């Protein structure tokens, strides 16, 4: 095992890695920007060093400073977390050149998978399905028909010069191809001044489903049951669950084997994730990309498999052999993750930096909080506004959902507004409950903003505010200077004399 691990990151993922290291008995080194001196990861690590000013470019992305810290403090491994330098092949190579183990896959895997084109070529050679489509533009009506047959319906006619959803045209039947070709060209010419169009398979009810893989340095590689991450806002995942409501055991095995093929294309030897786009209608799946790092949503896979992915990733980087085979990986129950952001759900999800002045974290059975928050934290404006990930497990999907509802109701963050109310509302949504979701769900159907929602306790709010005003005014009248003759003194006198017993409160 390593002598000392440096974590080149901040926030909750750094806390996650520190916890894994503590359990492995390995000392940890944190690095921090000037904006993060008070952050929890600085206080939780055994050592901590400042590496520059607040902007990431001048701190968390400074490879030279991070490697200098590692050299001086004797760290023999670096965990990059996610984001920042986690998918930077040059950094992985620089670590190796300095004799430091980069806790992640081999640099070639990062490089090949980091590029849309090379990754597609690599996995396609291994037989992993890509979204069927043309790589060039259509030349004729005849060619359009030929390609349509080759790709299979439904298809999408796309304007080469289009973008942002413009210049798209769905075609469901062969007899509509010719007319669509003519119309699309004319339309495209009018809109973009260019009549080039091409064909691609149209994915109905697109769902984002991904497969966690885990490899070691000895050629062993396993996959885990899938995660569904279709609940997205601005192309950002906000709720993830495992397993998916769409996937049955047979499809799970097919996706898992495709993921292993993709991973084997680059001799994958660490924790990674193969992302697929899946048609909610036909249940076909197609390779999107591979993330060569620990994923934000890794905890839900941990909850249904019992595998500590973060710890296994470190062990595998240290040369240990994976302690289980493919047939040992269970798929036990259901897990859900809600990402809690410092954003105001009543105000267009604007980020809400500020100071956390109160915090109560949910607890009890099968509730897991992965957070970098603490009372007194000034949420910095320089970084991602994710405060915490709330994760629950349940033996059935229904129990998982009611448990998350319960956990959300216990979560109190004071000082900044968070997306907790948004999650609470999503978890009451009929379509979400039925599992019939796709990546367009929030954008097209779910009103994330809900200023006008019914708030059932308006009277209680007025009562509380009235008491608040009364107590403030009474205190003011008494001079506020600490002459304790007001309510406080009364109350404590009452308490001291033994609280008057009341009837059972009716």
């Amino acid at each position, binding site marked *: 095992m390593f002598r000392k691990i440096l974590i080149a990151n901040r926030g909750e993922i750094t806390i996650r890695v520190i916890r894994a290291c503590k359990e492995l008995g390995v000392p940890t080194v944190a690095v921090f920007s000037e904006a993060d001196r008070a952050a929890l990861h600085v206080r939780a690590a055994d050592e901590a060093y400042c590496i520059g000013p607040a902007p990431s470019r001048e701190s968390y992305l400074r490879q030279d400073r991070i490697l200098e810290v590692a050299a001086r403090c004797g760290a023999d491994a670096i965990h990059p977390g996610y984001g920042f330098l986690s998918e930077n092949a040059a950094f992985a190579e620089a670590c190796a050149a300095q004799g430091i183990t980069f806790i992640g896959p081999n640099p070639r895997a990062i490089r090949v998978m980091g590029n849309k084109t090379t990754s597609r070529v690599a996995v396609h050679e291994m037989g992993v399905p890509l979204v069927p489509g043309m790589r060039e533009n259509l030349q004729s009506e005849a060619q359009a028909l030929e390609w349509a047959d080759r790709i299979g319906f439904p298809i999408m006619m796309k304007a080469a010069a289009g973008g942002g959803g413009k210049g798209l045209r769905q075609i469901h039947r062969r007899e509509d191809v010719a007319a669509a070709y003519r119309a699309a060209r004319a339309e495209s010419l009018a809109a973009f001044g260019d009549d080039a169009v091409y064909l691609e398979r149209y994915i109905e009810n697109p769902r984002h489903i991904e497969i966690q893989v885990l490899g070691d340095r000895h050629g062993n590689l396993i996959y885990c049951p899938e995660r569904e991450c279709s609940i997205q806002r601005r192309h950002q995942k906000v709720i993830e669950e495992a397993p998916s409501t769409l996937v049955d055991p047979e499809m799970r095995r097919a996706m898992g084997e495709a993921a292993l093929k993709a991973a084997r294309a680059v001799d994958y030897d660490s924790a990674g994730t193969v992302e697929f786009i899946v048609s909610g209608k036909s249940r076909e799946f197609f390779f999107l990309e591979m993330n060569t790092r620990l994923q934000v949503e890794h905890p839900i896979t941990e909850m249904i498999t019992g595998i500590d992915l973060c710890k296994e990733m470190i062990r595998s980087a240290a040369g240990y052999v994976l302690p289980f085979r493919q047939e040992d990986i269970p798929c036990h129950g259901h897990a859900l993750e809600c990402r809690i952001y410092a954003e105001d759900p009543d105000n267009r999800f604007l980020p809400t930096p*500020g100071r956390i002045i109160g915090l109560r974290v949910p607890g009890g059975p099968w509730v897991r909080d992965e957070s970098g928050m603490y009372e007194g934290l000034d949420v910095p404006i320089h970084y991602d506004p994710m405060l915490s990930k709330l994760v629950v497990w349940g033996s059935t999907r229904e129990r998982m959902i009611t448990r998350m509802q319960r956990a*959300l109701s216990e979560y109190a963050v004071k000082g900044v507004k968070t997306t907790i109310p948004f999650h609470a509302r999503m978890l009451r949504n009929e379509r979400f409950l039925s599992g019939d979701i796709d990546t367009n769900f929030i954008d097209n159907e779910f009103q994330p903003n809900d200023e006008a929602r019914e708030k059932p306790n308006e009277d209680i709010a007025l009562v509380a505010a009235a*008491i608040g*005003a009364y107590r403030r005014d009474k205190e003011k009248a008494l001079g506020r200077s600490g002459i304790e003759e007001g309510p406080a003194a009364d109350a404590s006198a009452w308490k001291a004399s033994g609280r008057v017993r009341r009837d059972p409160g009716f």
Partner: protein
Amino acid sequence: MVYIGTHQGRTTRAKVVEPRPGLFTVTLGEKEYHVDFLEPQPNIYSLLIDGRSFEVDVDAKPGGDLFDVFIRGDHYEVEMVEEKKKKLAMRMGKGATGRQDMKSPMAGNVRSVLVQPGDRVAAGQVVLILEAMKMQNELKSAIDGIVASVTAREGVAVAAGDPLLVVEPWEPQFPNV
């Protein structure tokens, strides 16, 4: 003490009596609430009202009569003004001018200012882009109007509540009378 409470435009008269320390009677309009009150943690009220238990987070905004109230995940912004004071204020009769002082809704950096003084703007038009936490946020004008002044400077950091710009309602020169 008697207060006038306002929530989402609806006003209610609230009379507060404390017959015994820790026990309050609050009369909202016609309805009477008997409240067993405790503040187990600062600004967290435990209210027992006819047996129903409510944990309520109450923050008085500094220096004002505005209270941020959180109950079971819902947020209520309540104004609670002493009745005499409210009546006085109402007699002063300050009508809404329609002038919009745009203030920054959060801390961040001004990425771009899309208007300048004298520009005509439509309600809903993006007038300024604010960058915070790696995201760009479009701020829109709430009214049809004319930009009266611009305080925000591109590339300069602002705190929540800082003035950004002012939009005056547009007065048609030749109203269709």
